[in-house]
């Protein structure tokens, strides 16, 4: 049966983009009920750093390597959730299996295949999450002694992300039949869009979290997220008015690619990856195969960036001197929401651990701010793809093809608008509203902020990190590096390589520095958050 976007509400129950909103908002509402004293999300599973042989009285007992977050943060059911321990993995599995299978059913996927694939992906992801939290990977050189170790890699939660990606890549590149078996549930973009809605909860919660230690810190954090929001807007100008013309010119003048292919490639490389390639393909009326080919390239190159850039930004430039420059540059340089948010998450872990080591613990940054800077930039870019495609469509239909009698429809802007950003902004602004309504850290609002915290943490920490992990794993599964060697891609691989490393990444770094240099993340060392 044909799937068409005819009405403004087309696809609300049948598209991943909308289902990211529904899943995100559903769990947001469940968490929000904590303000009414009802804790429905405390079962969210989360790992702790562990070792095989913890010191007497030391940290890292393997028996508590997984726990339900409600055991720590619930105000009403702490005992119950505290008793779940490793069983929280199953609780989380059951709830999210029901939620994602409902989505799969409505989207008319092969439900049996999705269920089996999802189950494998979930438990393999949990396994990598567990391994990645061994103290050797996740502890840092400051706190590794508490776990009885003399040395640790200081990767923080980043180790789990890397492991999930590596395991996914091994499956995707060396175990093709298994990758095909998982394919129905290997949906990195769906998972990351859902995680970005949860990230909205995180961004809204940052001022609340800071205000629980001091009202001044809370206001600083609210101001910082507002600054990130505004500074991220510049990325839109860069992506559309600098990157796109540059890549289009490289494709046309140096590589002599056909006009439509250059346009699609230009959007894929310089704007927002696959979604831009598809939007532009449709706008310029290219055969869909052009968008499909560019999309295949985008996915592979985005994973290469995901592997290279977080380490580069952390250790070469701009390092911990300008963490938000790094986050913003990531948002401009890495295509696809999944790879960008994943790279932002990895960068967040690397940077926070590095600053702790560099300052011997005197400076600590709250988790999530750097990720938010990477995602904020990307969300801005995403939002304008519909408008850009509309402009391109008018140029092509009215000026280049000059097809008589054809009209470009303004409704195309809506059909191409990324719907998950509604969830992101809604959850962010609602929790920001809670922060202000409770007096921005005034003593009389503390009970409200504490109640909000108990419902927020399982969502912004437990669910968000889980969906980030699922994204890393799924990205690996769907990425096949052999694509780069396929002759049919020919020049496009080289356009991508040159444009990305000699043009897009350097310009992204420069522009990020111009607009984010000097923005500081509040130091939370010494505060209990």
């Amino acid at each position, binding site marked *: 049966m044909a799937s*068409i976007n*005819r009405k403004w509400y087309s696809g609300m129950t049948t598209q991943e983009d909308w289902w990211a909103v529904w899943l995100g908002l559903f769990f947001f509402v469940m968490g929000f009920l904590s303000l009414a004293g009802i804790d429905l999300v405390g079962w969210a599973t989360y790992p702790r750093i562990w070792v095989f042989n913890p010191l007497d009285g030391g940290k890292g007992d393997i028996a508590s390597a997984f726990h339900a977050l409600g055991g720590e943060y619930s105000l009403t059911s702490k005992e119950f959730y505290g008793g779940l321990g490793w069983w929280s993995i199953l609780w989380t599995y059951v709830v999210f299996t029901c939620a994602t299978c409902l989505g799969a059913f409505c989207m008319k996927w092969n439900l049996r295949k999705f269920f089996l694939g999802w189950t494998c992906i979930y438990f393999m992801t949990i396994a990598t999450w567990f391994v990645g939290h061994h103290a050797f990977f996740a502890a840092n050189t400051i706190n590794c002694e508490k776990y009885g170790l003399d040395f640790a890699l200081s990767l923080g939660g980043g180790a789990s992300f890397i492991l999930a990606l590596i395991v996914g890549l091994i499956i995707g590149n060396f175990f093709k039949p298994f990758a095909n078996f998982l394919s129905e549930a290997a949906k990195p973009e769906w998972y990351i869009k859902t995680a970005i809605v949860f990230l909205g909860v995180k961004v809204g919660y940052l001022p609340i979290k800071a205000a629980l230690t001091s009202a001044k810190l809370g206001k600083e954090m609210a101001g910082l997220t507002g600054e990130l929001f505004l500074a991220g807007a510049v990325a839109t100008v860069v992506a559309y008015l600098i990157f796109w013309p540059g890549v289009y010119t490289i494709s046309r003048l140096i590589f002599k690619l056909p006009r439509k292919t250059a346009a699609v490639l230009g959007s894929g490389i310089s704007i927002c990856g696959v979604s831009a390639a598809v939007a532009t393909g449709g706008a310029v009326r290219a055969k869909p195969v052009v968008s499909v080919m560019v999309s295949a390239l985008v996915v592979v190159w985005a994973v290469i960036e995901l592997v290279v850039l977080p380490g580069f930004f952390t250790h070469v430039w701009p390092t911990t001197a300008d963490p938000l420059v790094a986050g913003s540059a990531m948002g401009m340089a890495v295509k696809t929401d999944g790879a960008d948010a994943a790279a932002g998450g990895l960068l967040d872990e690397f940077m926070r651990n590095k600053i702790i080591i560099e300052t011997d613990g005197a400076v600590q940054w709250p988790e999530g701010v750097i990720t938010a800077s990477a995602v904020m930039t990307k969300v801005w870019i995403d939002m304008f793809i519909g408008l850009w495609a509309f402009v391109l469509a008018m140029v092509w239909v009215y000026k280049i093809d000059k097809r008589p009698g054809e009209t470009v429809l303004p409704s195309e802007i809506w059909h191409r608008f990324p719907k998950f950003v509604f969830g992101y902004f809604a959850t962010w602004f609602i929790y920001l509203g809670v922060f202000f309504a409770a007096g921005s850290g005034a003593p009389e609002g503390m009970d409200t902020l504490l109640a909000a915290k108990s419902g927020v943490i399982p969502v912004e920490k437990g669910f968000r990190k889980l969906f980030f992990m699922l994204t890393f794993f799924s990205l690996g599964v769907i990425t096949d590096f052999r694509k780069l060697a396929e002759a049919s891609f020919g020049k496009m691989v080289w356009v991508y390589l040159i444009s990305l490393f000699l043009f897009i990444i350097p310009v992204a770094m420069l522009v990020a520095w111009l607009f984010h240099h000097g923005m500081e993340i509040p130091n939370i060392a010494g505060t209990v958050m």
Partner: protein
Amino acid sequence: MIELVIDHDGVNWNAKNEVLSVSSPTLDGLDLALEEQMRNKGLVKKGDKKKVFMAFDNSTIPQWIRQYAQHYFNRVVEISG
């Protein structure tokens, strides 16, 4: 307004509904074929103009891509009799 579903099979653009069905390697060719078929079937009279809405069948986009983007294009063309 007449409504059609359009897709691309790798070689041709195809547009069809219960009454009309046309194919062509190019969109220009598709519009011409549609014009001819509409005239032949009496759906547009000489001197008249009729708007045709074509909605792309997004289910023909590979499933792994649909999580990134789920809209290719819709177009409206005016067919003269």
